[in-house]
């Protein structure tokens, strides 16, 4: 029975990873850059919810909504200040800038909130349910996380396939110059992508910190990197790929922590990344991109 509990916990964690991975995969597909700071937006989102709830005592749902709005603004600001001037720069320069932004967010949070980890109060008021005579317990967080993840995934797929902005995103990801010729505002499209990614990061932060309540300035970095692993695992640029990759990674992580070694959980996740990149660098659902000379 404990196996099933682990499995459910794994799917729950994996759903959070997939929501984060969506932000990575969309930005990577459209702006062709690895947004290292994405994980730290999650951390900032967590701090915003924490501050609103602990100082103003507002309703958790309202706190989450405010956090989503602020994180969206943060995402757009980061893109506008740090990444937009580097649109034509070599990828090494963009990557170093992204690392710089990530480091900046971490240290701003460290200066404001201090080094001591805060304990996050769950924003989900649902009570856990017991199945099979109390041998399996499913937490309220899990009950919300998994359906929400499916909802986001479906909504995003429909948005990208059907809406004009969404189709503009596909066009920019396939050929930026051709998209400009077709009258698509590339800068605006990229800004919208960052906005969506950051809003998703805020949602993910509410879900993640409700389950794993330890909130410190570095607590966004590791989930961020793991979500990137999930995005690579599923095939970068693909929305269903991010979901499959995220859930698989979450399950693998929880099971290996439970059955192999608690301390080596992270190492095993990274080992998977390396194996995936060696065996199938394009991921499960990724397309192979031919390099032009």
């Amino acid at each position: 029975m404990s196996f099933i509990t682990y499995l459910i916990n794994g799917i729950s964690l994996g759903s959070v990873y997939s929501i984060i991975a969506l932000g990575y995969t969309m930005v990577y597909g459209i702006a062709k850059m690895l947004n290292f700071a994405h994980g730290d937006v999650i951390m900032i989102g967590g701090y915003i919810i924490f501050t609103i709830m602990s100082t103003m005592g507002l309703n958790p749902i309202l706190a989450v909504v405010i956090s989503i709005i602020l994180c969206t603004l943060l995402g757009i600001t980061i893109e506008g200040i740090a990444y937009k001037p580097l649109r034509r720069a070599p990828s090494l320069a963009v990557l170093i800038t992204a690392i710089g932004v990530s480091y900046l967010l971490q240290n701003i949070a460290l200066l404001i909130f201090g080094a001591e980890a805060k304990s996050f109060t769950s924003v989900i008021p649902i009570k856990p349910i017991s199945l099979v005579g109390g041998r399996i317990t499913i937490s309220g967080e899990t009950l919300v996380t998994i359906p929400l993840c499916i909802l986001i995934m479906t909504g995003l797929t429909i948005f990208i396939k059907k809406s004009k902005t969404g189709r503009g995103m596909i066009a920019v990801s396939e050929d930026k110059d051709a998209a400009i010729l077709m009258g698509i505002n590339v800068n605006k499209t990229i800004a919208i992508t960052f906005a969506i990614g950051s809003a998703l990061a805020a949602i993910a932060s509410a879900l993640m910190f409700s389950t794993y309540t330890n909130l410190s300035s570095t607590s966004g970095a590791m989930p961020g990197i793991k979500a990137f692993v999930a995005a690579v695992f599923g095939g970068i640029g693909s929305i269903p790929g991010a979901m499959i990759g995220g859930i698989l990674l979450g399950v693998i992580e929880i099971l290996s922590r439970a059955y192999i070694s608690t301390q080596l959980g992270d190492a095993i996740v990274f080992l998977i990344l390396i194996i995936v990149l060696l065996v199938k660098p394009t991921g499960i659902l990724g397309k192979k991109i031919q390099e032009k000379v």
Partner: protein
Amino acid sequence: MKAQLVKMKSQVQKLNRSTRSNVITIGVIVIAYTICMSMIKAGNMSNLLQNLLVAMCYYAIMAVSLNLTVGILGQLSLGHAGFMCIGAFTGAFFSKIMVGTIDNVLIRFTLAILIGAAMAGLFGVLIGIVVLRLRGDYLAIVTLAFGEIIKNVLNVLYIGYDSRGIHFSVNDTASLNLEEGGMVIIKGAQGISGTPRNSTFTIGVILLILTYLVIVNLINSRSGRAIMAIRDNHIAAESIGIDITKYKILAFSISAALAGVAGVLYSHNIATVQSTKFGYNTSILILVFVVLGGMGNLRGSIIAAILLTVLPEYLRFMRDYRMLIYAIVLIVMMIFNWAPACVNWRKKHSLKGFIDNKIRKKAKEEA
């Protein structure tokens, strides 16, 4: 014939320039070393600064060696601290086992450095074979992953030593099954403690100069030119017959081995080595040195490493906001170097542009 002569002349000039530049760099290091030593002798140097001298050396070695990967090979490695970690642990392990066997400190420490470098270089080759098939963002994230794996594994590893040989465990000290009189050397999260403190400023400076010479000679060799060709355009490099994988692994493993040297220096400087010290943050710190000093500029790396090690200890403002400043350095340097607006501004306001404008104006007036 004349064309050949001109070419030869320009080649000689080029050679001279690089040799001259090396002589200047090493000369400045030696002068700085002499000044420091005479200050210590005269008792003019504060304890704070004396404690930083060896740290400056190993950070400078780390920065120069990372510059080989980032600036010369053009690949971003975020796991450089992992190689330092391997060097530190291997070197400290060797010294602790051999402390009773080899009495001569110099020989023991030299061997420790060689073994630490060899081990880090070996890992560099192994990881390089895996990693260097990838490029750009993927490579960065995989090197980060390797750095974290190395850190995590060493964090749970227990190694002991007794008359029957070396024992490994990933659980605890008891499961090593040591004989009586056996010695636990690596104690999981506690790391290695009680390493003989053999690192001195003199050794650090010698190692720094050696590192610098190794990399400069590599850059100016045939292999170095191949490596830089890969950086500038890997497809063009491949099409003229450069074995990309070979040269990438060569550069990567040399960089790793030199990071191993810095690690040995580190572990023999402070008595306790823990793997958590070599995480992502340390790798970023070294990257900041390289970026601030200029990617591909070895001298710049050394200067940046020394400045950023010393300044935070003296300026209170820098000590409190150190990490924040590092982050801003990364962002601002990249935007300053690559944003079109900044590039134009620099062109307009550079000394060369100023002189060119003056000449043009003069020519106009004369006309």
